[in-house]
């Protein structure tokens, strides 16, 4: 790691530590949620310095975007007030935390040095992925090849977890659709924001599609694209109204599309089985194994993107539609 990168790493991590101290100490919930957005953005920058461009992408979109919005929506429902605990009990937690931290620090003393190329983590499966994947899978972005092809099972599990979380949220709070409400009850109160977001939304959606379909060659893929796409709709809902966004992306259709995404992923596996290969073995999808890999990755990334985008939008709708009842 060059010295300048190391310096950036050290400074950004120090800023992260300061942000965390502020989050722990500040009383105001609103300030804490905003600081978690800052925290995520700093984390994304550190991921870029550490070469994890795909991860940085996701962290920026998820941590600084969607999670902040969801937290604010929740605080809007639960209220800002915090009562102090009657007996102040910060000594015991502090002791527990200090002891745990000290044990962990002791554990790091045995760890290989940061950026050491001989560390055990770099000597087992990684060389295979780095050396063989450009010819075996045929796409330059190794993260995408590992994600979608070598470890396709894992990724399918993750998509199903995301889907299961959606089912959980919908069964806990559900989405309230206000049918029959006069649509534009109040005149647009935020003309500047509305004009600007109208200008930006097409570009955000275009960018999401680029990230989706260019993920084989550059940083990106279904997870990031899905989140970015959802952010476009969330921006629309925030600057216009919830009803406008729900008319644009009706929850009834989103629910079906979210399950369709999982189905596309699993279906690709079944098709490869029917063609005589193993589950999610894309080599058999076309005459040439590398072409088969291309098709397989394109299709399952589309499934991932579809599910993630729909799940994020539905979760957002669930949270803001709940907020209407308890203002």
């Amino acid at each position, binding site marked *: 790691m060059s010295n300048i990168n190391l310096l950036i790493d050290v400074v950004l991590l120090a800023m992260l530590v300061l942000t965390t101290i502020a989050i722990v100490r500040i009383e105001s919930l609103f300030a804490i949620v905003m600081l978690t957005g800052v925290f995520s953005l700093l984390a994304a920058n550190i991921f870029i310095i550490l070469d994890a461009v795909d991860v940085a992408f996701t962290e920026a979109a998820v941590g600084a975007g969607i999670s902040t919005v969801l937290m604010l929506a929740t605080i809007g429902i639960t209220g800002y007030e915090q009562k102090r605990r009657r007996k102040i009990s910060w000594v015991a937690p502090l002791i527990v935390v200090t002891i745990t931290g000290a044990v962990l620090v002791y554990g790091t003393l045995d760890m290989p040095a940061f950026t050491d190329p001989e560390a055990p983590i770099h000597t087992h499966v990684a060389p295979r992925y780095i050396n063989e994947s450009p010819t075996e899978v045929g796409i330059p972005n190794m993260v995408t090849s590992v994600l979608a092809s070598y470890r396709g099972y894992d990724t399918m599990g993750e998509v199903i977890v995301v889907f299961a979380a959606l089912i959980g949220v919908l069964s806990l709070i559900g989405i309230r659709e206000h049918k029959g409400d006069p649509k534009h009850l109040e005149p647009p109160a935020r003309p500047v924001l509305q004009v600007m977001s109208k200008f930006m939304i097409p570009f955000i959606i275009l960018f999401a599609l680029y990230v989706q379909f260019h993920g084989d060659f550059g940083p990106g893929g279904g997870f990031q694209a899905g989140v970015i796409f959802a952010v476009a709709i969330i921006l629309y809902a925030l600057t216009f109204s919830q009803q406008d966004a729900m008319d644009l992306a009706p929850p009834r259709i989103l629910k079906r599309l979210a399950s369709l995404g999982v189905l596309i992923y699993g279906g690709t596996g079944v098709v490869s089985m029917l063609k005589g290969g193993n589950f999610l073995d894309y080599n058999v999808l076309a005459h040439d194994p590398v072409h088969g890999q291309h098709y397989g990755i394109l299709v399952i990334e589309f499934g991932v993107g579809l599910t993630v985008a729909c799940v994020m939008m539905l*979760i957002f709708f669930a949270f803001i539609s709940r907020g209407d009842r308890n203002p």
Partner: protein
Amino acid sequence: MMSLDLYNYWVVIFLMMAGFYMLIASNHLIRKIIGLNIFQTSVFMLYISLGKVAGGTAPIAAEGIDTYSNPLPHVLILTAIVVGISTTSLALALVIRIKESYDTVQEDEILELDSIADEEGS
């Protein structure tokens, strides 16, 4: 730069412990969830730090580059972030339901209401 060999890991441990402290010491459920999120991000940071290789670049194959950082931790963490936001939203949904049932999101008041309900039940 020997002294910086373990710097990243120590920062990770500090963040982890700060999140852990928030989780066990706060009384407000949303603060607890934020603590969990900080803990989670620190684990991400640990994995990505482990994947970095000296002199390496982002793991996207290109002409003239022969050292890449390890792509495996990137894959694991990329999906973990999206799963993380899903589970966080599930936790926030639970908080909303608790607010509606108990009319509070303070842990001690919830426990108090629970113990009153237990006494009435028995």
